[in-house]
């Protein structure tokens, strides 16, 4: 019997596009592509028609117009004379700062809770379970609203801090007082913290299109440089340990390199803390951290921490008991066992789901809308959209920014993940 393996070569028929598996995938892909192109064209056509119907045009020129509104929390200089684009940047930074602190707090709280849930202490492990279940099973929106209400309802008003002449004469204390050696004041309108001021700061460099705060960048550059030098030294020490078996003592050098230059620079620039003081209606001086920021950060951290706790718990449980026993057999002490044996292995299990929690947290910062926190959605997707009526441009731009944020975070975290994963050998 002749082998049927050789398909007839030169007899291509049209029906082979459907029935021959060699060609079918091309047919399907082309059909899909054509359908996709048609759908896209249809959408674009509709959009163009709708824009024409409403007498609008698609351009981003509005970003360079005067914004005209004020933003409570601004990490870069901004006034109502700035452009909408500047407002966008302020909003983006506000989003990022919540996401940044949220991720840090969520990781710290989540790890502690995850470990405590495995604790032998009956009361503590039950309390942690209650915490985790409560936060996981109730919408985040509720936690944000609740923390906001609690913060503004239970804290004292600024005038409660005031010491009037009669009170001074009678020797009575005011209803509320500042914390941390009179440097921090928590009032019902925000938290006042001291601000760093420099007597001999480096000023700002005006580049025309934007201005750079040289003091800030100088400090940042020195920190990066010290970390880099320290890293080189640690790598060198490790090489020496591998070669000779003796690890040189470097911890004091590390501390010196990490903190010395920064402190020197700060002293040279004349660092001083500007402590908030009660003047007029409010505390003046220092930095006012609005409750919308605090509430959002607290709620996001606690909510995400509940999920992180579950991830950490699962990660630790995933490491088999034999690992601990082997480490004990080698004579390692419990803390060394944890840091050298359990944690590195658990990290591999923990990191991938942790990345998606970080992404969720970043996206959830958009719930700041509930407490009117002016983040990216509040500025670009809120007031700017509303005042200019450019919903198409604003929404598309906002989605693109959020998408890029997500992609950048997941790219960075995946890089880290790859670094800690088991190297295939």
């Amino acid at each position, binding site marked *: 019997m002749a082998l049927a393996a050789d398909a007839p070569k030169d007899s291509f028929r049209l029906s082979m596009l*459907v*029935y021959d598996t060699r060609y079918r*995938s091309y047919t*399907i*892909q082309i059909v*899909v*592509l054509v359908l*996709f192109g048609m759908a896209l064209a249809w*959408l674009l056509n*509709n*959009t163009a*028609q*709708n*824009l024409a*119907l409403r007498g609008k045009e698609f351009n981003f020129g509005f970003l360079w117009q005067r914004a005209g509104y004020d933003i409570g929390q601004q990490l870069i200089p901004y006034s109502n004379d700035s452009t909408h684009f500047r407002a966008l940047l302020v909003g983006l930074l506000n989003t990022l700062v919540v996401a940044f602190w949220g991720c840090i707090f969520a990781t710290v709280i989540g790890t502690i809770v995850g470990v*405590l849930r495995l*604790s*032998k*202490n*009956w*009361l*503590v492990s039950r*309390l942690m379970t209650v915490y985790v*279940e*409560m936060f*996981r*099973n*109730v*919408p*985040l*929106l*509720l936690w944000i*609203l*609740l923390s906001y*209400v609690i913060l503004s309802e239970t804290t004292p008003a600024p005038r409660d801090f005031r010491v009037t002449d009669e009170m001074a004469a009678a020797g009575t204390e005011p209803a509320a007082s500042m914390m941390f050696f009179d440097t921090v004041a928590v009032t019902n309108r925000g938290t006042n913290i001291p601000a760093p001021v420099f007597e001999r700061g480096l000023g700002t460099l005006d580049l025309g299109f934007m201005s750079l705060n040289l003091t800030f960048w100088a400090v940042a550059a020195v920190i990066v440089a010290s970390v880099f030098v320290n890293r080189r030294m640690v790598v060198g020490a490790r090489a020496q340990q591998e070669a000779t078996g003796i690890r040189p003592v470097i911890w004091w050098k590390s501390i010196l390199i990490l903190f010395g230059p920064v402190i020197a620079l700060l002293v040279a620039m004349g660092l001083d803390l500007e402590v908030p003081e009660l003047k007029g209606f409010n505390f003046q001086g220092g930095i006012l951290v609005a409750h919308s920021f605090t509430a959002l950060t607290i709620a996001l951290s606690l909510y995400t921490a509940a999920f992180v706790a579950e991830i950490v718990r699962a990660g630790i449980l995933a490491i088999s008991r034999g690992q601990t026993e082997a480490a004990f057999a080698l004579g390692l002490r419990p803390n060394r066992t944890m840091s050298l044996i359990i944690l590195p292995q658990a990290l591999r299990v923990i990191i991938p789901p942790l990345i998606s929690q970080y*992404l969720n947290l970043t*996206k*959830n*910062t*958009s*719930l700041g*809308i*509930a407490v009117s926190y002016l983040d990216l*959605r509040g500025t670009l*997707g809120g007031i700017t*959209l509303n005042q200019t009526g450019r*919903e*198409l441009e604003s*929404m598309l731009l*906002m*989605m693109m920014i*959020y*998408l890029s*944020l*997500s*992609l950048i975070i997941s790219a960075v975290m995946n890089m880290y993940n790859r670094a800690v994963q088991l190297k295939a050998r």
Partner: protein
Amino acid sequence: MDQHFARTDMLPPLPPPIAERGAVKWMRENLFSSALNIVLTVLGVLAIFWLVKSSLPWWLNSVWNANSLSECRQIVAANAGEGATGACWAMIRQWWGAFIFGFYPPDQWWRPITAFGLLLSALAPVLFSGQKRNLIIVLGGVAVFLLVALTLADAPGGAFALAILLVAGLLGLALVQPGRLFWFTLVYPALCFWLLWGGPIWSPIVAMAGFGVLYAVFRLSSSVIGLAPAAGAGIVAAAFWWLYLEEPVVRALQTALPFALQSINSDQFGGFLLAIVIGVTGITFSLPIGILLALGRQSDMLIVKTLSVGFIEFIRGVPLITLLFTASLLLQYFLPPGTNFDIILRVIILVTFFAAAYLAEVIRGGLAALPRGQYEAADALGLDYWRAQRLIILPQALKVSIPSIVSTFIGLFKDTTLVAFVGLMDPLKGVTQIVRADINWKGIYWEPYIFVGAIFFLICFGMSRYSMHLERKLKTDHR
């Protein structure tokens, strides 16, 4: 001397020392085993004490009967003295209907209740396919729930008859042929739609008939023109049916056999009814899309794969709230001028996309968990792609994904609260805002949040426990 000093009878064992038994032992081992644990225990006790001390009076001074917040506060002050705080649950008494059903007319409340009961019976065949005992337990539970809830809602006799008839029929079917119950699950969406929105019974039936048309055309023509073109022809025929034939057919049937429920507008939906409708519809419709996307992402075809990955990553990369604003502000830009349909439907469409992207990743996880041998075995049997997926791969992949699908649903259900930001009446913010616009209840904060939060907790906690149970059960029989 024959004195024996050995004992002839055993001494009864002494009780263990006081530190090694009973409550003391338990406390020593579980609360005070080390210095760190002692500190933790003390901190825990202090935390509980502080919580109870600060909130107990508020709970104890609860007021259940009042017509306004100021009246409520007067009652608290009268009962517990000036300056005391107390919860005012009287608001819930007045507004609970809005929290649960929105502005759905009270005399029609039996419809969402019946739809909810039937939802559970429609889910049962999926979760316990063919297990007679579990099916009967669930259906019995549904029957009890319907009897109680319908009585509480003062349902008309006809509603009782309808609900009891349906559940009895399902119970009978479960006793005789539990496998066939799956058909009810397929019919359920149409039934639910009719119950909730009302209108002539014929519109959902005729709409469902479109799928029948699709299948019939596919079966009849597949032997003639081949599978792929037949599927295409089926879709075209079904689209034709929905676009051009549905209207006249419904009208004709309605004039011949008029049978209709009072029709309810979408804008009367609110509260938990709205949350459940959006959540359940979103997850149901996103399941097939999610499966296709997951398969597309696993596919060898570059273009299909790129498009699937692009869609999934885009949706997962932006916050849900921007998608909701898209539904509210942008969707109408993308559709032909003049197209207009109500905001709930638009929100459901975007929520479906959102859930589909997340489900695609969940199902991809299920697909990846399958041993490679399963794919190879399917190939070895000579099954083509769709047959292999349908008969070998998907049943297993979906089964291991069920717990994660439930988690996705919990997440989605919690996220339905965000629809308040596009002006819908979700229970958490939408209804609460309306309550606070009522002159009698201006200034009430904690009570509505606690009430809604407690209901959310009960539903989500129940589901998550169930999904954990399912996970354990599925683990034993898989590999």
